[in-house]
Protein backbone atom coordinates (compact mmCIF):
# COMPACT_ATOMS: atom_id res chain seq x y z
CA UNK A 1 0.00 0.00 0.00
CA UNK A 2 1.17 3.48 -0.83
CA UNK A 3 1.62 5.65 2.24
CA UNK A 4 3.07 8.70 0.59
CA UNK A 5 2.71 10.03 -2.91
CA UNK A 6 4.25 13.30 -4.01
CA UNK A 7 4.06 14.54 -7.57
CA UNK A 8 5.64 17.61 -9.10
CA UNK A 9 5.64 19.54 -5.86
CA UNK A 10 6.81 23.12 -6.15
CA UNK A 11 7.41 25.56 -3.34
CA UNK A 12 8.91 29.04 -3.29
CA UNK A 13 9.78 31.42 -0.51
CA UNK A 14 9.24 34.74 -2.25
CA UNK A 15 11.57 34.75 -5.23
CA UNK A 16 13.50 31.69 -4.08
CA UNK A 17 12.20 28.43 -5.50
CA UNK A 18 13.16 25.78 -2.97
CA UNK A 19 11.31 22.74 -4.35
CA UNK A 20 11.36 22.51 -8.14
CA UNK A 21 9.02 19.69 -9.02
CA UNK A 22 9.65 16.91 -6.52
CA UNK A 23 8.11 13.48 -7.06
CA UNK A 24 8.50 10.71 -4.50
CA UNK A 25 6.39 7.78 -3.46
CA UNK A 26 6.70 5.44 -0.55
CA UNK A 27 5.06 2.15 0.31
CA UNK A 28 3.93 0.95 3.67
CA UNK A 29 6.79 -0.60 5.64
CA UNK A 30 9.40 1.10 3.52
CA UNK A 31 12.25 3.15 4.99
CA UNK A 32 13.28 6.07 2.85
CA UNK A 33 16.28 8.30 3.46
CA UNK A 34 16.73 11.72 1.98
CA UNK A 35 20.26 13.01 1.64
CA UNK A 36 21.67 16.09 0.00
CA UNK A 37 23.67 19.25 0.59
CA UNK A 38 22.59 21.98 2.96
CA UNK A 39 19.91 24.19 1.46
CA UNK A 40 18.77 21.58 -1.05
CA UNK A 41 15.22 21.69 0.35
CA UNK A 42 15.11 18.50 2.45
CA UNK A 43 13.57 20.14 5.51
CA UNK A 44 11.19 22.14 3.37
CA UNK A 45 9.99 18.92 1.75
CA UNK A 46 9.29 17.36 5.18
CA UNK A 47 7.56 20.54 6.32
CA UNK A 48 5.33 20.48 3.26
CA UNK A 49 4.43 16.84 3.86
CA UNK A 50 3.58 17.58 7.50
CA UNK A 51 1.62 20.68 6.43
CA UNK A 52 3.88 23.09 8.30
CA UNK A 53 4.42 24.80 4.95
CA UNK A 54 2.00 25.16 2.05
CA UNK A 55 3.04 24.04 -1.40
CA UNK A 56 2.49 26.22 -4.47
CA UNK A 57 1.57 23.41 -6.83
CA UNK A 58 1.70 19.65 -7.22
CA UNK A 59 0.14 16.74 -5.40
CA UNK A 60 0.65 15.35 -1.90
CA UNK A 61 -1.23 12.23 -0.78
CA UNK A 62 -0.77 10.63 2.59
CA UNK A 63 -2.26 7.25 3.48
CA UNK A 64 -4.66 7.52 0.56
CA UNK A 65 -5.91 11.00 1.42
CA UNK A 66 -5.12 14.02 -0.68
CA UNK A 67 -3.52 16.82 1.32
CA UNK A 68 -3.10 19.24 -1.57
CA UNK A 69 -3.48 19.09 -5.28
CA UNK A 70 -3.40 21.27 -8.37
CA UNK A 71 -1.77 24.38 -9.75
CA UNK A 72 -2.15 26.48 -7.75
CA UNK A 73 -2.52 23.83 -5.06
CA UNK A 74 -5.83 23.63 -3.22
CA UNK A 75 -5.84 22.08 0.22
CA UNK A 76 -8.20 19.51 1.64
CA UNK A 77 -11.01 20.68 3.97
CA UNK A 78 -10.20 21.00 7.67
CA UNK A 79 -11.63 17.61 8.66
CA UNK A 80 -9.45 15.81 6.13
CA UNK A 81 -6.42 17.85 7.16
CA UNK A 82 -6.95 16.70 10.72
CA UNK A 83 -7.19 13.03 9.64
CA UNK A 84 -3.99 13.44 7.65
CA UNK A 85 -2.24 15.11 10.57
CA UNK A 86 -3.00 12.08 12.69
CA UNK A 87 -1.55 9.67 10.19
CA UNK A 88 1.82 11.38 10.09
CA UNK A 89 4.44 12.02 12.75
CA UNK A 90 7.47 14.30 12.72
CA UNK A 91 10.57 14.09 14.86
CA UNK A 92 12.40 17.40 14.95
CA UNK A 93 16.10 18.05 14.97
CA UNK A 94 15.81 19.94 18.27
CA UNK A 95 13.14 17.67 19.79
CA UNK A 96 10.59 20.40 20.59
CA UNK A 97 9.39 18.59 23.70
CA UNK A 98 6.99 20.57 25.87
CA UNK A 99 9.28 21.73 28.69
CA UNK A 100 6.53 22.29 31.26
CA UNK A 101 5.18 18.74 30.92
CA UNK A 102 6.77 15.69 32.48
CA UNK A 103 8.15 13.09 30.11
CA UNK A 104 5.02 11.02 30.69
CA UNK A 105 2.65 13.89 29.97
CA UNK A 106 4.57 14.78 26.83
CA UNK A 107 3.65 11.34 25.55
CA UNK A 108 0.11 11.04 26.93
CA UNK A 109 -1.20 14.54 26.17
CA UNK A 110 -2.04 14.02 22.50
CA UNK A 111 -3.31 10.49 23.11
CA UNK A 112 -5.81 11.84 25.61
CA UNK A 113 -6.75 15.16 24.02
CA UNK A 114 -6.45 14.35 20.34
CA UNK A 115 -7.16 10.63 20.08
CA UNK A 116 -9.50 10.73 23.12
CA UNK A 117 -7.95 7.66 24.67
CA UNK A 118 -8.65 7.08 28.33
CA UNK A 119 -5.96 8.27 30.74
CA UNK A 120 -5.16 4.70 31.79
CA UNK A 121 -4.84 3.46 28.26
CA UNK A 122 -2.61 6.41 27.34
CA UNK A 123 -0.39 5.83 30.37
CA UNK A 124 -0.07 2.16 29.61
CA UNK A 125 0.94 2.85 26.05
CA UNK A 126 3.35 5.59 27.16
CA UNK A 127 5.06 3.32 29.65
CA UNK A 128 5.38 0.59 27.04
CA UNK A 129 7.03 3.08 24.68
CA UNK A 130 9.29 4.46 27.39
CA UNK A 131 10.36 0.95 28.22
CA UNK A 132 11.15 0.35 24.59
CA UNK A 133 13.25 3.54 24.61
CA UNK A 134 14.97 2.48 27.83
CA UNK A 135 13.56 5.46 29.70
CA UNK A 136 11.01 3.88 32.02
CA UNK A 137 12.53 5.46 35.10
CA UNK A 138 12.41 8.92 33.52
CA UNK A 139 8.62 9.09 33.21
CA UNK A 140 8.31 11.64 36.03
CA UNK A 141 11.31 13.72 34.96
CA UNK A 142 11.10 16.94 33.00
CA UNK A 143 12.73 17.28 29.58
CA UNK A 144 15.36 19.68 30.94
CA UNK A 145 16.59 16.92 33.23
CA UNK A 146 17.40 14.61 30.33
CA UNK A 147 20.35 14.44 27.97
CA UNK A 148 19.80 15.39 24.35
CA UNK A 149 19.73 11.75 23.33
CA UNK A 150 17.13 10.95 25.96
CA UNK A 151 15.04 13.93 24.93
CA UNK A 152 15.10 12.78 21.34
CA UNK A 153 13.99 9.31 22.41
CA UNK A 154 11.08 10.86 24.30
CA UNK A 155 10.12 12.83 21.22
CA UNK A 156 10.20 9.64 19.15
CA UNK A 157 7.99 7.95 21.75
CA UNK A 158 5.65 10.96 21.66
CA UNK A 159 5.20 10.50 17.91
CA UNK A 160 4.91 6.72 18.07
CA UNK A 161 2.20 6.98 20.71
CA UNK A 162 -0.19 8.16 18.02
CA UNK A 163 0.65 5.18 15.76
CA UNK A 164 1.28 7.25 12.63
CA UNK A 165 1.20 5.54 9.25
CA UNK A 166 4.32 7.50 8.35
CA UNK A 167 6.99 8.83 10.68
CA UNK A 168 9.29 11.57 9.40
CA UNK A 169 12.62 12.54 10.92
CA UNK A 170 14.44 15.77 10.16
CA UNK A 171 18.09 15.17 10.99
CA UNK A 172 17.24 13.55 14.31
CA UNK A 173 20.85 13.40 15.45
CA UNK A 174 22.19 16.76 14.28
CA UNK A 175 21.62 18.53 17.59
CA UNK A 176 23.28 15.75 19.58
CA UNK A 177 26.80 15.22 20.82
CA UNK A 178 28.54 12.70 18.57
CA UNK A 179 28.62 10.04 21.28
CA UNK A 180 24.82 10.23 21.63
CA UNK A 181 23.94 9.91 17.95
CA UNK A 182 24.46 6.14 18.03
CA UNK A 183 21.69 5.88 20.59
CA UNK A 184 19.10 7.47 18.35
CA UNK A 185 20.31 5.73 15.25
CA UNK A 186 19.87 2.35 16.89
CA UNK A 187 16.35 3.29 18.00
CA UNK A 188 15.47 4.18 14.41
CA UNK A 189 17.13 1.03 13.17
CA UNK A 190 15.06 -1.02 15.55
CA UNK A 191 11.91 0.67 14.23
CA UNK A 192 13.05 -0.11 10.70
CA UNK A 193 13.35 -3.77 11.61
CA UNK A 194 9.77 -3.61 12.85
CA UNK A 195 8.78 -2.24 9.44
CA UNK A 196 7.73 1.16 10.65
CA UNK A 197 7.23 3.34 7.57
CA UNK A 198 9.80 6.11 7.90
CA UNK A 199 11.10 9.03 5.91
CA UNK A 200 14.43 10.11 7.31
CA UNK A 201 16.37 13.22 6.36
CA UNK A 202 19.91 12.63 7.50
CA UNK A 203 23.53 13.58 7.07
CA UNK A 204 24.66 10.20 8.40
CA UNK A 205 25.56 8.41 5.20
CA UNK A 206 26.52 5.06 6.69
CA UNK A 207 23.29 5.09 8.65
CA UNK A 208 21.24 5.87 5.54
CA UNK A 209 23.00 3.05 3.78
CA UNK A 210 22.42 0.71 6.66
CA UNK A 211 18.70 1.18 7.36
CA UNK A 212 17.13 2.37 4.11
CA UNK A 213 15.19 0.44 1.56
CA UNK A 214 15.62 3.37 -0.75
CA UNK A 215 17.76 6.50 -0.68
CA UNK A 216 16.88 9.76 -2.35
CA UNK A 217 19.51 12.31 -3.24
CA UNK A 218 18.27 15.89 -3.49
CA UNK A 219 20.10 18.94 -4.73
CA UNK A 220 18.86 22.46 -5.43
CA UNK A 221 15.24 21.52 -4.97
CA UNK A 222 15.25 18.49 -7.24
CA UNK A 223 15.47 14.75 -6.79
CA UNK A 224 18.68 14.00 -8.64
CA UNK A 225 18.82 10.27 -8.08
CA UNK A 226 17.14 7.56 -6.09
CA UNK A 227 17.59 3.87 -5.62
CA UNK A 228 18.52 1.15 -3.18
CA UNK A 229 21.50 1.99 -0.97
CA UNK A 230 23.54 -0.37 -3.15
CA UNK A 231 22.59 1.50 -6.30
CA UNK A 232 23.03 4.94 -4.89
CA UNK A 233 26.21 4.50 -2.90
CA UNK A 234 28.05 1.85 -4.90
CA UNK A 235 26.73 2.22 -8.42
CA UNK A 236 26.14 5.96 -8.43
CA UNK A 237 24.78 7.14 -11.77
CA UNK A 238 24.81 10.90 -11.47
CA UNK A 239 27.91 13.07 -11.37
CA UNK A 240 26.36 15.39 -8.78
CA UNK A 241 25.58 12.54 -6.42
CA UNK A 242 29.11 11.28 -6.76
CA UNK A 243 30.55 14.69 -5.94
CA UNK A 244 28.34 14.92 -2.87
CA UNK A 245 29.22 11.45 -1.63
CA UNK A 246 32.93 12.03 -2.17
CA UNK A 247 32.90 14.65 0.55
CA UNK A 248 31.79 12.04 3.04
CA UNK A 249 34.25 9.41 2.00
CA UNK A 250 37.22 11.77 2.16
Amino acid at each position, binding site marked *: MEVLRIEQVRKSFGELEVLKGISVSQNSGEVLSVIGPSGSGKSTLLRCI*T*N*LEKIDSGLIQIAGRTLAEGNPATYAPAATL*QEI*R*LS*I*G*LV*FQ*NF*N*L*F*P*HFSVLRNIT*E*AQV*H*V*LKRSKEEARERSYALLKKMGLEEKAKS*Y*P*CQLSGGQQQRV*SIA*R*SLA*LSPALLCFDEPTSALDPELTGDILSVIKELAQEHMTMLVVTHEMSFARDISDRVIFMDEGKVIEQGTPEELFSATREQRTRQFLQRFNA
Partner: protein
Amino acid sequence: MVKLLLLMLEASLVSLRIFFLTLLFALPLGLLVARGRMSANKVVSSVVNIYIMIMRGTPLILQLIFVYFAPYYIFGASSGRFTAVIIAYVINYAAYFAEIYRGGIQSISPGQWEAAHVLGFSRSHTYFFIILPQVIRRIIPAMGNEVITLVKDTALAQTIGVAELFRVAQNAAAREFSTMPIFIAGVFYFVMNAVVSRTFDVIEKRLDYYS
Protein backbone atom coordinates in the same frame (compact mmCIF):
# COMPACT_ATOMS: atom_id res chain seq x y z
CA MET B 1 -7.22 57.33 66.54
CA VAL B 2 -9.26 54.14 66.34
CA LYS B 3 -11.87 56.04 64.41
CA LEU B 4 -9.21 57.30 61.99
CA LEU B 5 -7.87 53.81 61.48
CA LEU B 6 -11.35 52.44 60.83
CA LEU B 7 -11.98 55.20 58.34
CA MET B 8 -8.74 54.45 56.55
CA LEU B 9 -9.37 50.74 56.62
CA GLU B 10 -12.65 51.35 54.90
CA ALA B 11 -10.98 53.56 52.32
CA SER B 12 -8.32 50.95 51.71
CA LEU B 13 -11.13 48.55 50.82
CA VAL B 14 -12.06 50.94 48.03
CA SER B 15 -8.45 50.87 46.85
CA LEU B 16 -8.42 47.09 47.01
CA ARG B 17 -11.62 46.90 45.02
CA ILE B 18 -10.09 49.08 42.32
CA PHE B 19 -7.02 46.90 42.41
CA PHE B 20 -8.77 43.55 42.11
CA LEU B 21 -11.42 44.63 39.63
CA THR B 22 -8.73 46.10 37.39
CA LEU B 23 -6.77 42.85 37.46
CA LEU B 24 -9.89 40.77 36.96
CA PHE B 25 -10.72 42.51 33.70
CA ALA B 26 -7.35 43.74 32.47
CA LEU B 27 -5.53 40.41 32.68
CA PRO B 28 -7.80 38.60 30.18
CA LEU B 29 -8.41 41.73 28.12
CA GLY B 30 -4.65 42.17 27.76
CA LEU B 31 -4.43 38.71 26.27
CA LEU B 32 -7.05 39.65 23.72
CA VAL B 33 -5.27 42.91 22.95
CA ALA B 34 -1.98 41.05 22.52
CA ARG B 35 -3.64 38.74 20.01
CA GLY B 36 -4.99 41.74 18.13
CA ARG B 37 -1.56 43.34 18.15
CA MET B 38 -0.05 40.18 16.65
CA SER B 39 -2.90 39.67 14.19
CA ALA B 40 -1.95 38.93 10.60
CA ASN B 41 -4.69 41.37 9.63
CA LYS B 42 -2.87 44.68 9.11
CA VAL B 43 -5.91 46.80 9.92
CA VAL B 44 -6.53 45.03 13.21
CA SER B 45 -2.90 45.11 14.27
CA SER B 46 -2.43 48.81 13.48
CA VAL B 47 -5.65 49.86 15.20
CA VAL B 48 -4.61 47.89 18.27
CA ASN B 49 -1.14 49.34 18.05
CA ILE B 50 -2.52 52.90 18.04
CA TYR B 51 -4.63 52.06 21.08
CA ILE B 52 -1.58 50.70 22.91
CA MET B 53 0.48 53.78 21.97
CA ILE B 54 -2.18 56.12 23.31
CA MET B 55 -2.57 54.17 26.54
CA ARG B 56 1.15 54.02 27.16
CA GLY B 57 1.93 57.46 25.75
CA THR B 58 -0.44 59.58 27.84
CA PRO B 59 -0.75 59.91 31.62
CA LEU B 60 -3.21 57.62 33.34
CA ILE B 61 -4.61 60.60 35.21
CA LEU B 62 -5.53 62.21 31.90
CA GLN B 63 -7.20 59.03 30.67
CA LEU B 64 -9.12 58.84 33.91
CA ILE B 65 -10.45 62.35 33.50
CA PHE B 66 -11.26 61.68 29.88
CA VAL B 67 -13.20 58.50 30.61
CA TYR B 68 -15.19 60.24 33.31
CA PHE B 69 -15.95 63.54 31.58
CA ALA B 70 -16.03 62.70 27.86
CA PRO B 71 -19.35 60.79 28.01
CA TYR B 72 -20.83 63.74 29.88
CA TYR B 73 -19.96 66.14 27.08
CA ILE B 74 -20.90 63.73 24.32
CA PHE B 75 -24.03 62.09 25.69
CA GLY B 76 -24.94 64.53 28.41
CA ALA B 77 -24.66 61.77 30.97
CA SER B 78 -21.83 60.15 32.79
CA SER B 79 -21.17 56.77 34.30
CA GLY B 80 -20.55 56.63 38.02
CA ARG B 81 -17.18 57.74 39.30
CA PHE B 82 -16.18 54.31 40.45
CA THR B 83 -17.22 52.72 37.15
CA ALA B 84 -15.19 55.35 35.28
CA VAL B 85 -12.15 54.51 37.39
CA ILE B 86 -12.47 50.79 36.64
CA ILE B 87 -12.96 51.39 32.91
CA ALA B 88 -9.98 53.75 32.70
CA TYR B 89 -7.70 51.45 34.68
CA VAL B 90 -8.75 48.35 32.79
CA ILE B 91 -8.14 49.80 29.33
CA ASN B 92 -4.87 51.33 30.50
CA TYR B 93 -3.50 48.25 32.20
CA ALA B 94 -4.73 45.93 29.44
CA ALA B 95 -2.41 47.82 27.10
CA TYR B 96 0.60 47.34 29.37
CA PHE B 97 -0.27 43.70 30.03
CA ALA B 98 -0.74 43.14 26.30
CA GLU B 99 2.81 44.23 25.58
CA ILE B 100 4.12 41.92 28.27
CA TYR B 101 2.06 39.01 26.93
CA ARG B 102 3.24 39.76 23.42
CA GLY B 103 6.88 39.68 24.44
CA GLY B 104 6.26 36.40 26.24
CA ILE B 105 4.38 34.78 23.39
CA GLN B 106 7.00 35.83 20.86
CA SER B 107 9.76 34.41 23.04
CA ILE B 108 8.30 30.90 22.69
CA SER B 109 10.08 29.00 19.94
CA PRO B 110 7.97 28.37 16.82
CA GLY B 111 8.96 24.73 17.27
CA GLN B 112 6.47 24.48 20.14
CA TRP B 113 3.60 25.48 17.86
CA GLU B 114 4.89 23.21 15.14
CA ALA B 115 5.22 20.18 17.41
CA ALA B 116 1.70 20.78 18.72
CA HIS B 117 0.37 21.15 15.19
CA VAL B 118 1.95 17.93 14.00
CA LEU B 119 0.63 16.07 17.05
CA GLY B 120 -2.87 17.12 16.09
CA PHE B 121 -3.74 19.46 18.97
CA SER B 122 -6.47 21.99 18.29
CA ARG B 123 -5.44 25.63 18.18
CA SER B 124 -7.11 26.38 21.48
CA HIS B 125 -5.56 23.40 23.25
CA THR B 126 -2.17 24.44 21.92
CA TYR B 127 -2.70 28.00 23.05
CA PHE B 128 -4.08 27.38 26.52
CA PHE B 129 -2.21 24.25 27.55
CA ILE B 130 1.07 24.35 25.68
CA ILE B 131 1.96 27.95 24.90
CA LEU B 132 0.30 30.02 27.61
CA PRO B 133 1.71 28.16 30.63
CA GLN B 134 5.20 28.73 29.28
CA VAL B 135 4.40 32.37 28.57
CA ILE B 136 3.08 32.94 32.08
CA ARG B 137 6.22 31.60 33.62
CA ARG B 138 8.37 33.92 31.53
CA ILE B 139 6.34 37.05 32.19
CA ILE B 140 5.86 36.68 35.93
CA PRO B 141 8.68 39.10 36.86
CA ALA B 142 7.48 41.79 34.43
CA MET B 143 3.89 41.29 35.58
CA GLY B 144 5.00 41.66 39.19
CA ASN B 145 6.41 45.10 38.45
CA GLU B 146 3.26 46.17 36.68
CA VAL B 147 0.98 44.98 39.46
CA ILE B 148 3.03 46.82 42.07
CA THR B 149 2.61 49.97 40.00
CA LEU B 150 -1.12 49.33 39.93
CA VAL B 151 -1.26 49.31 43.74
CA LYS B 152 0.26 52.77 43.78
CA ASP B 153 -1.83 53.97 40.85
CA THR B 154 -5.04 53.32 42.75
CA ALA B 155 -4.28 56.61 44.54
CA LEU B 156 -5.04 58.47 41.29
CA ALA B 157 -8.71 57.53 41.52
CA GLN B 158 -9.23 60.52 43.81
CA THR B 159 -8.72 62.77 40.77
CA ILE B 160 -12.36 62.24 39.83
CA GLY B 161 -13.51 62.20 43.41
CA VAL B 162 -13.42 58.56 44.43
CA ALA B 163 -12.72 58.32 48.14
CA GLU B 164 -9.92 55.80 48.05
CA LEU B 165 -7.26 55.45 50.67
CA PHE B 166 -5.05 58.36 49.78
CA ARG B 167 -7.91 60.81 49.41
CA VAL B 168 -9.26 59.88 52.82
CA ALA B 169 -5.79 60.17 54.30
CA GLN B 170 -5.33 63.66 52.84
CA ASN B 171 -8.72 64.78 54.11
CA ALA B 172 -7.97 63.48 57.56
CA ALA B 173 -4.57 65.16 57.53
CA ALA B 174 -6.14 68.49 56.64
CA ARG B 175 -8.82 68.08 59.28
CA GLU B 176 -6.43 67.18 62.06
CA PHE B 177 -3.43 69.28 61.01
CA SER B 178 -1.29 66.16 61.14
CA THR B 179 0.78 64.17 58.68
CA MET B 180 0.00 61.01 60.61
CA PRO B 181 -2.83 59.85 58.29
CA ILE B 182 -0.56 60.26 55.26
CA PHE B 183 2.07 58.20 57.00
CA ILE B 184 -0.46 55.51 57.86
CA ALA B 185 -1.58 55.43 54.21
CA GLY B 186 2.05 54.92 53.23
CA VAL B 187 2.21 51.91 55.53
CA PHE B 188 -0.97 50.54 53.95
CA TYR B 189 0.46 50.78 50.44
CA PHE B 190 3.72 49.32 51.59
CA VAL B 191 2.00 46.34 53.20
CA MET B 192 -0.17 45.78 50.12
CA ASN B 193 2.87 45.75 47.92
CA ALA B 194 4.74 43.46 50.26
CA VAL B 195 1.88 41.01 49.86
CA VAL B 196 1.93 41.44 46.07
CA SER B 197 5.69 40.88 45.94
CA ARG B 198 5.47 37.83 48.14
CA THR B 199 2.65 36.41 46.01
CA PHE B 200 4.67 36.82 42.86
CA ASP B 201 7.72 35.26 44.50
CA VAL B 202 5.63 32.25 45.47
CA ILE B 203 4.18 31.92 41.97
CA GLU B 204 7.64 32.23 40.47
CA LYS B 205 8.98 29.48 42.71
CA ARG B 206 5.98 27.29 41.98
CA LEU B 207 6.60 27.54 38.24
CA ASP B 208 10.31 27.04 38.59
CA TYR B 209 10.20 23.26 38.24
CA TYR B 210 11.65 23.26 34.73
CA SER B 211 14.09 25.32 32.76
